[in-house]
């Protein structure tokens, strides 16, 4: 809530309907620079939000402001966003190079500048050798990288990427994630949507969870999880040699809500309402020699579990 939001993407009570069909309903967001990931089932409103951010659709109600510019100024708005869609279609007959070059020329770049920026973008996504081959002959991963290149080539401050890692092999994923980090550190807004939750954990600064057109949670994932501790106590899996003894000791403390014995009787699944105090307690118990710990792992400290709790498996459209 600082300044006039000139460095944020702001949604003020935004709703978008397509006739009767709901896109998003009463969304209130303020997205800072960095990597923000949209998470949610298909049909939950992610694409609608992305279209609103890039100015491709207008909200039915409410105000959208991207770095201070609203969709009422389409020319300025289109310049500052780069969009990589999830759909895999390209103009026929073009090579990778031509695709980017023509796109940049459409952005009113002169010939030399367009050429330079094209090669720069191609280098960033690692498509320099294949640049003069036709897109129809590209593999899926290569087409994905050309799409990414098209989103970043005009160096926009806002990048909206719909499932950008789709079809990329593990090395390309790592490289692309590194690219996002670089862009984020330069101050850009990188908005990604993804279904691969363990990657979301690793790369995002901030997460927005959507279901059925509503935002159900947003912020840093650890903070979100901490906020939910009361209805959904933190679950921690502790593998040790004497789980019964450990369970007895743990139950002495009131923040421990529930303890389940693991199937192989070599570990406990502890549900606690206060994660910090639990870890302190556990550290202490190990030092006292009361328990021989083999491993400690939070079972639901990630996006995946938050997703399960807030959205569940029936939050989807079909």
């Amino acid at each position, binding site marked *: 809530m600082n300044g006039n939001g000139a460095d944020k993407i702001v949604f003020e009570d935004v709703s978008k309907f397509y006739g009767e069909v709901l896109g998003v309903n009463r969304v209130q967001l303020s997205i800072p620079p960095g990597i923000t990931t949209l*998470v*949610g*089932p*298909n*049909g939950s409103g992610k694409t609608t939000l992305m279209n609103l951010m890039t100015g491709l659709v207008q909200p039915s109600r409410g105000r959208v402001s991207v770095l201070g510019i609203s969709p009422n100024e389409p020319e300025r708005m289109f310049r500052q966003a780069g969009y990589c869609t999830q759909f895999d279609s390209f103009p026929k007959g073009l090579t990778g190079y031509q695709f980017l070059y023509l796109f940049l020329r459409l952005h009113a770049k002169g010939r030399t500048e367009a050429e330079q920026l094209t090669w720069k973008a191609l280098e960033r996504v690692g498509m320099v050798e294949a640049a003069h081959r036709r897109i129809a002959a590209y*593999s*899926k*991963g*290569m087409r994905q990288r050309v799409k990414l290149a098209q989103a970043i080539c005009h160096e926009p401050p806002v990048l909206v990427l719909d*499932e950008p890692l*789709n*079809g*990329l*092999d*593990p*090395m*390309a*994923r790592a490289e692309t994630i590194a690219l996002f980090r670089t862009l984020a550190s330069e101050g850009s807004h990188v908005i990604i949507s993804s*279904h*691969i*939750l*363990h990657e979301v954990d*690793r790369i995002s600064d901030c997460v927005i969870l959507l279901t059925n057109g509503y935002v159900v949670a947003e912020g840093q994932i650890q903070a979100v999880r901490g906020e939910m501790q009361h209805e959904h106590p933190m679950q921690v899996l502790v593998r040790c040699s004497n789980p019964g003894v450990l369970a007895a000791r743990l139950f002495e403390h009131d923040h421990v809500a529930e303890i389940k014995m693991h199937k192989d009787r070599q570990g406990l699944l502890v549900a606690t309402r206060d*994660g*910090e105090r639990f*870890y*302190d307690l556990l*550290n*202490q118990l*190990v*030092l006292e*020699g009361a328990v*021989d*710990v*083999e*491993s*400690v*792992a*939070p079972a639901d400290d990630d996006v*995946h579990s938050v*997703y*399960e709790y807030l959205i*569940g*498996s029936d939050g*989807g*459209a*079909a």
Partner: protein
Amino acid sequence: MDVKPVIELAGLEVRFGERTILNNLCGSLSGRAIGLLGPNGAGKSTLINTLMGFYPPHKGTARIFGYDIRTQIRQVRNRIGYMPENESFISGMNAVSFVRFMAELAGLPREAALERAHEALFYVGLGEARYRKLEEYSLGMKQLAKLAQAIAHGPKLLILDEPTNGLDPPARQRMIRLIRDVRERGNLHLILCSHLLRDVEECCEEVLILKQGRIVEYCNLEEERRSNRRFLEMEADGDKEAFAEGVRKLGCECALAGERRIKTVLSEGVEIRDLYRLAAERGVRIRRLNYKRDSLEDIFLKAMENGHGSL
């Protein structure tokens, strides 16, 4: 356990015009679930297509369950089920007709095909939706229909190409669970081709890594996991640098990875309790402690750097 090889590669070479896509692949695979990995353009799809007889090899050959793909491709196809990566369906049909049609084409008689189609659709979780036309399906449902047609005729080898493509998290989990269930109970072998290392780790015991048309690594994940007992990974709050220092003083290798992770190798004589003691001394709270998780990622990256390996 199976000793007979499922797939034997004998100098398999495949060319598209001038370009050599698969170069002299040799070896014998006999695992229950084999993961097929590799960067884009490494030849994974070409290998799968060649094994199914879609594309003729230029030199050499391969055998599946002992049948040569060059001369006995019909016997090979009798035993395989294939779930393609791209969207694949027949318009104008609902899921029941589709799976039944595919089962009949595989040789099942009409009544058996209908029974097996319903069984397969029930197994993958398509309920009432099976009576709707395939064109109306969401992506997740289309993937399930593809899986159903791959298993309805009871193949001995199931080839899955990016089965979790485009699925949202609950659907992904369901698909992985299904694949694991099929693997365990189904008495069949499977080849999983995927870019998501997590998926391959959860489903496969063996992994074949291709790069530029050659095999660069073939390893058994079970054995890798068993030998990783001394590699630990931790997450902690507090002064991680000081903690890492202390661990090194104990004689163990230690490194900070990323913002939160601390990796260490326990040397002889150092126990986990020693780490906790050290943590208490340095005012550090250990949140997570377990054996290193991303071994497949390391294996993959190493394979990419090294280049050459063989079975």
